[in-house]
């Protein structure tokens, strides 16, 4: 079963590199990550050996870049008609869904891995807490994974990649939104504490920030894992439901 999932993952992963998408994505991601970290985040000016300014902007980068990775997963198969081919090969639906997700996730992990020079730089300039940085990378990877799961599910609905992209940006924005300081402040004054906390616990941003601070809490990990599992499950339902239409 794992072997069959990897057959799909391998094909999908290589498909990213078969088109200019991979190069364009990687260049833009690295350029923007650098821009935010050094020019806007002021990594050098802060005079602290850590990567807070680097991770701080990841959710916003991912908000626009991750949907570009996930939008093709199913929409492309529908547009070219290969969905008919792949769903009549002896794969379980779960193998297809997880395989595609793993490929997209693997691809974003490649992008994250290519930011290693920034990590090396702070180690060269000072003595950062590498545990905190590792935890930040974990948070970043999980956040990208959650967005990808949302995007894969949305991509299953449509054969238009543009629709998949736009809907995914909106959905991921909502996933972040509940953690906005502005939204939190809005509720803080009057809403019961429980409501404010419930909203915050639904926010990818709050869980992400905990990880970036270096606090690896099981609840934060569980949040991201649940989002991924829930959306992949819905993805399978969408594909199965389309079959009966």
């Amino acid at each position: 079963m794992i072997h069959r999932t990897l057959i799909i993952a391998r094909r999908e992963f290589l498909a990213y590199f078969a088109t200019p998408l991979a190069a364009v994505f990687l260049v833009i991601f690295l350029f923007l990550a650098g821009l935010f970290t050094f020019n806007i985040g002021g990594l050098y000016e802060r005079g602290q050996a850590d990567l807070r300014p680097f991770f701080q902007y990841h959710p916003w980068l991912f908000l626009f870049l991750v949907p570009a990775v996930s939008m093709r997963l199913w929409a492309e198969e529908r547009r070219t008609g290969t969905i008919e081919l792949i769903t009549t090969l002896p794969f379980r639906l779960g193998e297809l869904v997880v395989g595609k997700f793993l490929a997209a996730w693997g691809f974003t992990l490649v992008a994250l891995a290519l930011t290693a020079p920034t990590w090396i730089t702070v180690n060269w300039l000072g003595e950062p807490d590498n545990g905190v940085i590792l935890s930040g990378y974990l948070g970043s990877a999980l956040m990208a994974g959650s967005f990808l799961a949302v995007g894969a599910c949305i991509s299953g609905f449509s054969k238009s990649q543009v629709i998949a992209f736009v809907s995914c940006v909106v959905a991921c924005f909502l996933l972040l939104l509940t953690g906005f300081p502005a939204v939190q402040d809005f509720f803080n004054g009057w809403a019961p504490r429980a409501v404010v906390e419930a909203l915050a616990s639904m926010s990818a941003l709050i869980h992400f920030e905990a990880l970036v601070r270096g606090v690896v809490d099981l609840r934060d990990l569980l949040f991201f894992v649940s989002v991924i599992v829930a959306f992949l499950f819905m993805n399978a339902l969408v594909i199965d439901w389309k079959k009966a239409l």
Partner: protein
Amino acid sequence: MSLLVETRDLHKRFGGIHAVRGVSLKVHRGEVLGFLGPNGAGKTTTMRMITGFLEATEGSAWVDGVNVALDPLRAKTRMGYLPEGAPCYPDMRVEEFLAFIARARGFRGADLQARVERSIEAVNLTLVRKQTFETLSKGYRRRTGIAQALLHDPPVLIMDEPTDGLDPNQKFEVRALIRRLGKERAVILSTHLLEEVEAVCTRAVIINRGVVVFDGTPTAMDALAPASVKVNRLDHVFRQLTTSDESGGRA
């Protein structure tokens, strides 16, 4: 003769449209069944229900004794399928694509390589094996689609318009291939070309508005035409059977 494909009272509704209305077929080993009908008659939908790509609204489909809806995984290992338009991943090379199909079909190592080579040879893809699918001509695309359907040597082959877009030479080759394959298998192919029915099929089924209106040998189909019709006799029968309830509009 062993029964390899059976549909029992298949129905398909798309919203308010009743596209397939009770199609029951039995196809045995050694039969090449030509599935005919006007556009929109329900040919592709019926084939999609047999392959499990679409779920039947009512009725059931069986492939080599396996119920497609209840045990789709096992049913899928027993058939090869060429979907309408022979879709394929545009950025993949022909041999990469066939290797992917072979892996998906559970082959590994030397066996995988041998399968890929054999299917490339079977439909003469040697010249284009290193080319990506998007650079192929329509004929080669179709042949790549046929190659992936044959790769695992399935007892059942289902092909939606296998010769569409091929030039006369390619048509001749593919038909010869289908005839050869049909001896040991059950083949269902859809086509718009009545000459194809005469050339390769042992049996013709005509479907019109989701209902089977003819099921018999090409010779029996020919016999339905009056003696006064000298040329294109199958075309005549086809028109008779598929336009009779439309006040003769299209004939």
